[in-house]
């Protein structure tokens, strides 16, 4: 008999007023009993909508069925057939708009907690069965993957499982891409990312850090080195600013810089040599997951007041509902329908305020959301000593500028076939933010996965 409770088992978490002072993981994970209880809420639909809602097509009812029977490792094995990074996805996927959004149980009550169960299975495997991977038999063909983020790692994992010799080239000193420089420790512990990458290395994937494609080697040189195909998953790139006065004052960060200092460079630890400004009052401009991550990190670094400044209303916040809720619980103040017009600096050229104008919602714009319109005469100043701009990124030009015949859009994104990821160059595939502009981890993984299938088909001809 399935468990017919209308509600998900709640996720055990650190209390809000405790966790906003530390960088430890917020969500603590289900224990075995809770996992079984939650798994029993699955109705095992004959035609499961959840699988179609998953960008990498995990056989969700099957893995949940194993967990319901207490066969946790079996559950993990089913997930890992489709996903190269289950412990990551269980934590950062927007399940509410994917698998859980279409779960039959959500028609009446809450969906099955698919994400929490995925995380449970992956964590169970990590603590109970380390290093139990079989190395696939080599097929003698080499593929180069550019960028060790979610798209690249997924592509690398899938190809390695098929016997390809895969080398992943990473520009930074640590593999993981946005999983290590962007998403904070309290949402995705770096140890977990490291273990997932070690799992790929056990499959035979070689990760070469400190190698910038477009600089150290070009894409053409990778072919000369004997790679038969190249996948570009180089990520989103250059941070955007608003082009308002004062953005180059001391104390104005891009979210990329702020989060990289905190996450990749561990500036929150006393023994790190990387500095970060000590701030009392911080304004984060933007309403996406990155803005939430920056605001919550600022709190943990000791800021007394942190604001989210967003030009539309709360309903339009692009961040996941769960992230917004966590951010609020921790004490971040939301200034919605508010748009910065100037960042104000003192005599020392350091931020001392952010001048904003209030907005109201007008007619819908091309995105279908109601366009924010300025309310005349509503200018006001918020006193802050730091401003973090989390308003997106534009594509990095390094590969585009050094790869002849690689078509890009007017904005600079690589043009790639939606299904296969094939670019305008034979044998060159691309996926993730380099193609779509800033999006989610799981969409990048989905792109890496379909490109891996396309590369396999191309090289099997």
């Amino acid at each position: 008999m399935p468990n017919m409770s209308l509600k998900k088992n709640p996720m055990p978490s650190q209390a809000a007023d405790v966790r906003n002072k530390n960088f430890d993981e917020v969500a603590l994970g289900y224990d075995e009993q809770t996992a079984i209880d939650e798994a029993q809420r699955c109705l095992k639909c004959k035609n499961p909508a959840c699988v179609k809602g998953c960008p990498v097509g995990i056989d969700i009812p099957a893995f949940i069925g194993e967990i319901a029977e207490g066969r946790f490792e079996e559950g993990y094995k089913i997930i890992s057939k489709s996903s190269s990074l289950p412990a990551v996805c269980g934590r950062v996927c927007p399940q509410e708009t994917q698998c859980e959004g279409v779960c039959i149980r959500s028609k009446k009550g809450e969906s099955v907690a698919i994400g929490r169960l995925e995380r449970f299975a992956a964590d169970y495997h990590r603590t109970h069965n380390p290093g139990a991977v079989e190395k696939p038999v080599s097929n003698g063909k080499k593929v180069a993957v550019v960028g060790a983020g979610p798209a690249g790692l997924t592509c690398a994992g899938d190809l390695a499982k098929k016997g390809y010799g895969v080398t992943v080239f990473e520009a930074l000193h640590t593999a993981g891409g946005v999983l290590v420089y962007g998403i904070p420790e309290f949402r995705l512990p770096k140890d977990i990312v490291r273990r997932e990458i070690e799992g790929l290395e056990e499959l035979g994937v070689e990760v070469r850090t400190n190698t910038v494609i477009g600089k150290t080697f070009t894409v053409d040189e990778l072919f000369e080195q004997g790679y038969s195909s190249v996948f570009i998953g180089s990520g989103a790139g250059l941070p955007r600013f608003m082009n308002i006065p004062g953005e180059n004052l001391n104390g104005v960060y891009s979210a990329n810089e702020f989060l990289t200092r905190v996450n990749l460079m561990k500036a929150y630890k006393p023994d790190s040599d990387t500095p970060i400004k000590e701030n009392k009052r911080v304004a984060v401009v933007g309403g996406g997951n990155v803005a939430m991550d920056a605001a919550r990190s600022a709190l943990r670094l000791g800021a007394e007041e942190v604001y989210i400044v967003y030009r539309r209303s709360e309903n339009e916040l692009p961040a996941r509902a769960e992230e917004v809720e966590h951010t609020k619980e921790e004490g971040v103040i939301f200034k919605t329908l508010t748009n910065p017009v100037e960042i104000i600096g003192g005599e020392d050229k350091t931020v001392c305020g952010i001048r904003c104008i209030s907005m109201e919602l007008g007619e819908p714009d091309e995105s279908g959301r109601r366009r924010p319109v300025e309310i005349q005469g509503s200018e006001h100043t918020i006193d802050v000593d730091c401003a973090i701009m989390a308003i997106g990124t534009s594509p990095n030009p390094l590969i585009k500028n050094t790869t002849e015949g690689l078509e890009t859009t007017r904005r600079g994104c690589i043009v790639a076939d939606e299904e296969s990821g094939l670019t305008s160059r034979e044998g060159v595939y691309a996926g993730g933010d380099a193609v779509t502009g800033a999006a989610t981890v799981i969409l990048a993984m989905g792109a890496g996965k379909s490109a891996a299938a396309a590369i396999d088909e191309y090289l099997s001809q």
Partner: protein
Amino acid sequence: MYKIVKKELLNSTVTRMVVEAPNIARKAEPGQFIILRVDENGERIPLTVADYDAAAGTVTIIFQIVGATTQKLNALEEGKYILDFVGPLGRKTETDGLKKVAVVGGGVGCAIAYPVAKKLGSLGCEVHSIVGFRNKDLVILEKEFEACSSKLCMMTDDGSYGTKGLVTNALKELIESGEKYDEVIAIGPLIMMKFVCALTKEYGIKTVVSMNPIMIDGTGMCGGCRLTVGGETKFACVDGPEFDGHLVDFDEAMTRGSMYRGFEQKKREESCNLMKQG
């Protein structure tokens, strides 16, 4: 891991290191930089490539010991390894079509100016080098500059070597005496580059400067290295590090460069104390 194959103290605060990095050596050009990290807790710092040898597979860096990171780097001896070393980053110096150039270097900036002068010399360009130091003890690369320049002006602040005065004094004299330069390339402290640019602007001589702002990734991801150039925001790592000096907002660059001075001072003392304890 990147092996230090040679280490040499050029003066009491400036060190030259030759580092095994064959992939970077094959690609490096004057004007480009590398980013390194000394150890696991280390910060990423950019250093301009001072020389490179594709055949030997080595890249030379020259650095002044100013903070905790350069202090830690300087503590590494020949045969030891630097944890991370990535490049070559940034754009190379544009040398096309230059027939006569004044290369101006200040202090440790001479380490960056030298490969530019050398490249120009090898292309048959007439190079006048003007190098400035605080005093005789801090002079570096004199022989190297001599070898690639048809004229070398050695300047010291206190007159203990060469001519007493600033690089701008020498440059002004040369221009006034009728030397016609296609371009001036100035590399050194921000304040020096600012005044060189103020001078050359008067004479309408195109001037290129090499900027060295605070940076993390060096590939265009963090935006920490942004500068105002001609009223627009530019990223030194992908748009530079060299820019038209007449368009650079040096005052803003100086303020941005001092953002972490307090932290750096504290870290330097910590690292100094650790080294004293052995």
